[in-house]
């Protein structure tokens, strides 16, 4: 799936309060730039973060981006090596 499509898909869920990415790791730009714009009412978030993300310094960026979302009440981070799960770009 191309980037524009997934972003359009996600933009249909603006009122989302709870986001659980399951086995899918979201792309760097969605995680660090857009998450607040896409989901302005987000309260609960569960993210899968794998080693690749960490190598690219993405982890710190994600954390900074999570720090920006003031209404968040529940943050769950699953730090785990990738085991054949899908990645959406």
């Amino acid at each position, binding site marked *: 799936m191309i980037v524009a499509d997934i972003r359009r898909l996600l933009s249909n869920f603006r009122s989302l309060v709870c986001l659980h990415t399951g086995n899918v790791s979201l792309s760097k730009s969605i995680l660090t730039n857009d998450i607040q714009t896409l989901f302005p009412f987000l309260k609960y978030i569960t993210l899968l973060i794998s*080693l690749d993300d*960490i190598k690219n310094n993405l*982890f*710190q960026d994600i*954390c900074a981006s999570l*720090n920006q979302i*003031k*209404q*968040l*009440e*529940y*943050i*769950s*981070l*699953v*730090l*785990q*090596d990738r*085991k054949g799960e899908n990645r959406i770009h």
Partner: protein
Amino acid sequence: MKNKIYLIIFLGGCLCDLNARMYLRLACQYISNITSEYKHISIEENGYEIKNRFLLIDIAEKPSFGSINVSLISTLKHLIISFRSMLNIDLILEKKDSKINKLQLQTLVLPCIPSRSNSIDILDLNQLNILDIGYVNTKNRIELTRLDEILLSHRQHSLRNLTISLSEWQSARLVVIRRNEDNKQTTNSVFENCFDDIITPEEIEKPIIFDQSNIINEFSLEFLDDTQSSIFQLSLNYSWLNKLTNLNLTGIHCHSIDFKYIFDSLYSLRSLSLSPCLLFYIDQFECYCQTISTSHPYQIHLLNKNLLSLNLVSNISNPKELCSIFHEQYKLHSIRHSSIHQHLNNDNFQLSFQYEYLIHYSIQQIFQTLDLHHLSIRIPNYEFHIDDLNIEKSNHLQTLVIDVKIPMTFHIKLARLYSINSFNYLRRFILISENNFELTPLLIDRFHTLEIIEIISINSHLNRSTINYLEKVLKPNNYPNLNTFRFWIGSVDAKHLLKHLHKTIRLAFEKLKPAFQFDISIINQTRKCILYDNTHEIHQDFHSLLSIHSNQLSIIYPNFLNYKPLYSEQKFDK
């Protein structure tokens, strides 16, 4: 009011894994830099591999992880850092705001004892409800003293859940303190030697009644290091024992008649985990050789009949060995009562002190006296006897978990097993065995009420006829409650047959049950079975969830996988 957030971090993999170490560092960095106010932080190791379920770590050889800082803010109420400490970690807890006095914690879970005392000094532990240092595994005297400082909070009576580990200390002594009306204290401990004066039963008021006007009883567990000197005492007050809902003593090896008082006072106990060995004791006061005809010089504790869940755990590597602690006690008994003691110390008699014999005997006794709803036997090196499962015909067993050595010809004896027992209430059947045994239809064909069937037999072979059988019978009509069917095996006859089976079963069940799980495959070490996936609800049968009604005491092996839901899966008081 501003929201106080919950931050939950799962570490996939244990710390012997380089990546997991990096995850841990990053997680701690993130916590230290978080800008929002939070009340709950947890970092937990998430799930285990089957091979590592009784992971042994030589603590002297542990490599160093270096230091790791966690800087915390004062809104924090629950701090949970929980993983098996495979490394020497220098954990440093700090206050972010130097102006506030102390962090008022309700929950504290640590993987190691912080090496600097100011890490503990910043915490106010007087309101502590939950203290879990079950992964702390140390022989270092200074660390043990610090451990004791933390345990001091237990005496504040605020604690409802306490978990500590004992494996490297190897032994505990149970001390019973009896106070009579003159406030005289008498103590009695297990490892007395035969030349000491002992309190004879006449001197103790009999029967012992837990009545405040009469005698106030207090028990304490004294933890000993390998030189047999005391490290610290954990006092178990009677009213606290009364409220206990979950007791895990798997880290204790102790044979004492005095455990009777503990077991008798557990009115609210829902689940119990222990090593079968703990149930045995020798009466040092009296010798029954001439009055009661028994083939054993020892007795077995009776557990409260209301008990619903029992988890028998032992990590013994050689079941043929004699239990040396117990055998030693027997020798003392023989010397002390030499005038009347009659049991011969011949080879045959010695066998009754073999771990294997003790386990077998205790399992049989338990089935004769208790009607359990949930039973798990997790003794991977113990070879299962078919008559271990002689449960009375009308049993209410709902969950049966067996992690033992299954004999190769297990299936031959199954017919007999089924003729003795009817498992009308059985819902979950989990069988784990590392040795090779034959997987045959008999293994499941009486269990049509099951919701979960999980058989992990890493070295077994699944043959063609069993695959054909499964294809024939595994239908929603035959197994109306089935949600999970899992066989993990070493090898399989015909892969195409297996493929076809997967297809047929999915077609049959998935229409009715979209979440139906069916998986027969050659074992992949990285996958988690129900038993080692802490998030599975089966753990709730063996471990109370945190609530204002739950009180737990766990004295465990540090590296042993306990039935324990993750803290992150539980609801904490707001």
